[in-house]
């Protein structure tokens, strides 16, 4: 080792260790996409040197659910507690939002001066039923060389103490016994009928729209399958209504349905075979959901807006609003839906906004809205 190889070895050791440190510094200062996925998009240092950067940092912190860090960075944190801040984002009662995670967000500057700014934060929540969007306009103020966002807290709705008389219909089913656990029933399935059906061509493929009526005097759990039949009388594709339908139909109730056939072409279809399913299930008319202030908004941004009000005394964790749209002759034009990401509290209005495709908006002259609900421990 006295021939100089020791010195060369020492140099090699220094070079390798230095290179290792350099690689680590590079990887930390400019993390890879895979690494960022585990930091909520945040790098080693996140400076809030602009209003947008401040809001972006806040969004990153919300994404990784670093509530304390997000709360500590707010300019108006003295006005509410960290818990209130978290509940404001995730909901005060169990709902879709409670278990959702922030998938991504967008930041739009609205207005800025030297000392304050208005910034729009669009949050895209990943929930079990799909992406849900919410928007907050934040006032951002300069604090030294940093910017801090003021969080526009929406106060927790307070329901006054009251007694709500409950008087609703309910249907129970007596099964044969404990062994009848998966639907081998003695009774006929409830009579249901497709009262309207229409295939339409959309950019994403063929869409089959329709309405299903429960003609029976008992409740029915329903679903609809559609099979596209080609010109050669062979099946092209078969799909189901999935969640674009209200699966629980009380007697004489009607539900719209929509079935997607992605990448299919109506030109290839000679007929559509519809297969409705129904099963007798226990059901109740409670909770009663009232729909109020419905309004069809014309294009651009065509939509159906309104409010749903839980008339019962129990909290509804998830509400699914289904809109059926008709033209002036009463023909079915479109079916659209929206999940409400906040729980419905008794007697408390909750707004909904169902998007309508621009190209169809002009044809629509009337609509019908129904709401299906889910409460923890129950079915929709």
């Amino acid at each position: 080792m006295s021939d100089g190889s020791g010195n060369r070895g020492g140099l090699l050791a220094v070079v390798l260790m230095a290179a290792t440190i350099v690689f680590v510094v590079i990887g930390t200062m400019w993390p890879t996409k895979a690494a960022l996925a585990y930091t909520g998009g945040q790098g080693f240092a996140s400076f809030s040197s602009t209003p947008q950067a401040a809001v972006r940092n806040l969004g990153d912190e919300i994404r990784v659910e670093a509530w304390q860090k997000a709360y500590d960075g707010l300019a108006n944190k003295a006005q509410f507690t960290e818990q209130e801040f978290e509940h404001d984002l995730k909901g005060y009662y169990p709902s879709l939002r409670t278990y959702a995670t922030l998938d991504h967000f967008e930041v739009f500057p609205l207005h800025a001066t030297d000392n304050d700014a208005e910034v729009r934060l669009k949050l895209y929540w990943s929930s079990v039923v799909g992406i849900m969007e919410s928007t907050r306009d934040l006032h951002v103020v300069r604090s030294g060389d940093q910017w801090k966002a003021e969080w526009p807290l929406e106060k927790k709705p307070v329901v006054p103490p009251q007694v709500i008389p409950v008087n609703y219909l309910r249907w129970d089913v007596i099964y044969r016994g404990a062994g009848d656990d998966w639907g081998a029933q003695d009774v006929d399935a409830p009579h249901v009928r497709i009262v309207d059906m229409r295939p339409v061509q959309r950019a994403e493929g063929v869409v089959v729209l329709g309405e299903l009526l429960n003609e029976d005097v008992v409740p029915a759990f329903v679903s609809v399958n559609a099979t596209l039949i080609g010109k050669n009388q062979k099946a092209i594709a078969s799909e189901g209504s999935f969640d674009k339908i209200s699966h629980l139909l009380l007697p004489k109730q009607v539900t719209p349905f929509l079935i997607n056939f992605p990448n299919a072409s109506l030109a290839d279809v000679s007929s559509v075979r519809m297969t409705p399913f129904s099963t007798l299930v226990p059901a109740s008319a409670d909770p009663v959901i009232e729909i109020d202030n419905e309004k069809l908004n014309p294009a651009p941004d065509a939509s159906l807006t309104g409010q749903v009000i839980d008339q019962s005394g129990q909290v509804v964790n998830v509400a699914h609003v289904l809109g059926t749209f008709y033209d002036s002759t009463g023909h079915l034009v479109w079916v659209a839906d929206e999940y409400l990401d906040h729980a419905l509290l008794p007697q408390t209005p909750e707004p909904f906004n169902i998007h309508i495709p621009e190209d169809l908006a002009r044809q629509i002259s009337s609509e019908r809205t129904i709401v299906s609900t889910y409460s923890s421990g129950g079915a929709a």
Partner: protein
Amino acid sequence: MQKTELLERSQRPLPMSLLLMAAVAVHLPLLLMKLPLKSYDTNLHIFFASHYLHHWWDPWNPKWYAGFSQTTYPPLPQQWIAVVSHLMGLEMAYMAVQMAAILLLVVGVYRFAKLWVSPRAASFAALACVFLGAESFLVYSAGQLGTTAAAPLYLNALPFLYEWVRRGSGRSFIKAVALFTAAAAAHHATLLFGSFFFALPVLALAYFDREDDSERVAAGAFIARTVTIVVVVSAAIAVVLLPFWIALIHYPVTQTPIPHPSRANYILSPQWGMNYFVVPYGALILALPFIFWRGSSVARLRPLLLGFWVAFLLGLGGTTPVGPILLGRAFNVLTMERFSYWASLLALPIVGALAMELCARFRMRAAVALSILAAFTCALAAGWTTYHPPDAENVDVGPVAAWLNRDGHDQYRYVTLGFGNKIARLARLTDASSVDGEWNSGRMLPELMRYGGGALTSSKGFHEAGLDALRAMLMHADHYGLKWVFVRDQYYDPLLAFAGWRPVDHLNDGTITVWSKDGVPPAQPLNAPQMPPHWQGVMWGICPFGSSIVAILVLLIPEKRRRAAEERYPVMRDGELGLGRMVS
């Protein structure tokens, strides 16, 4: 005279029997407690083995993904489990195979380390491998049987490679080919990356050593021997794993990459730094400066150091940009903890030398300190599965399997939600088929490949990608005969409720709800093009397992005693450090 004897004894390697006893003493109790069952992948390997147990000649497994080919994963350890299970059942057979792999590792590390350092230092390295954090982490937390079974085979093959290239020993050639082939039959990634991290340094060493003693090797002979063994091993592996290559070529892994925390930046995400750096390396972290210094100072250790360094950098996952640069797309497919394992193995010869030198200089004080550090490293890695469990809770899947197996429920397919890695155990216990699974490289259903989520049962953990895949699968329930969803996480209830599923039963004291969909036709076998033809099934049943039998048989061929001098160990004077072969 007595002093000379004492000195001679102090230069001898630790007896192999002692090293193996240490491995047994440390790992056998943990394996008898079936600790690996709590790991990520152990149940997957047992599930694969279960299929081989019942269908040795048919690698098409209909229980996951509505059918998938097990030729997508080298089968050797799992086939051994299947064979041994005839004696002790699948779970204990797994433990037995894992124990055998650990014992082989001790032998392999000793033989590999002896290429680089003195026999005594090599024996210290072999003792260190018993307590290696990365080994315990892979065995008890990751459950990577393939990696931990292939590495010892590979390490045992390397000295034969050296002997062949260096001295042209025909017996070594045969043994190297047999062991390399068996290693490939155990784990393909070890073969691929082992060639770079392990074999290239050994070849470089053989090249540097070619003029060392009386047996000089011409450069031409060196190259010819290297090319010969590469060609023969490649051909052997191509034949033994032919169905695997066919599956890989026809159906390459093109699905959207699935996130894995081993690709995180361990500084920005310190919890993953703890999991994938501190726990696997343990006290080895303290030796890093010495590894770099000694590996650089001694010329013939430099190839080993470079192999270690690259593996070390890759093992850091997303902490450095090296992984994405060197591996490209593979960075998003591979998990990085195996690189830390390989880096640890590559460091062991130098660590063995360090331990030997410390013991020579500081005697009992060094021995005590090293023992404490080794015990702590091993204990932390083995116990990590308790502090950082792969699954939140231990799910009893027995009632679910019993439910599926009765009243014709298994005519339909099922999926679980919130069961974690217990789905492999459930699949083993039930006759029913699922559309889900844990072997992501084997899945071919478009609903699962498109979005970048892992197993459906853990959809929530993969956020939008996982939930998109789940929704896509539920939409096509009729197509796959998917009638049952077993839910032990109420998070999923709203989706099922609004998508037309109804709760029809409760299991495990109401903690698991069975959801059903009406109108679903009974499941039909998928006529998938990935289904291997019968001849591939026969090959799969004979060649990989046969390669291990051949390896065992050729190892029985006695080695030539090259020189009696090699059996003696150099005697050192008092106070002299045991640098042995490390002196350049």
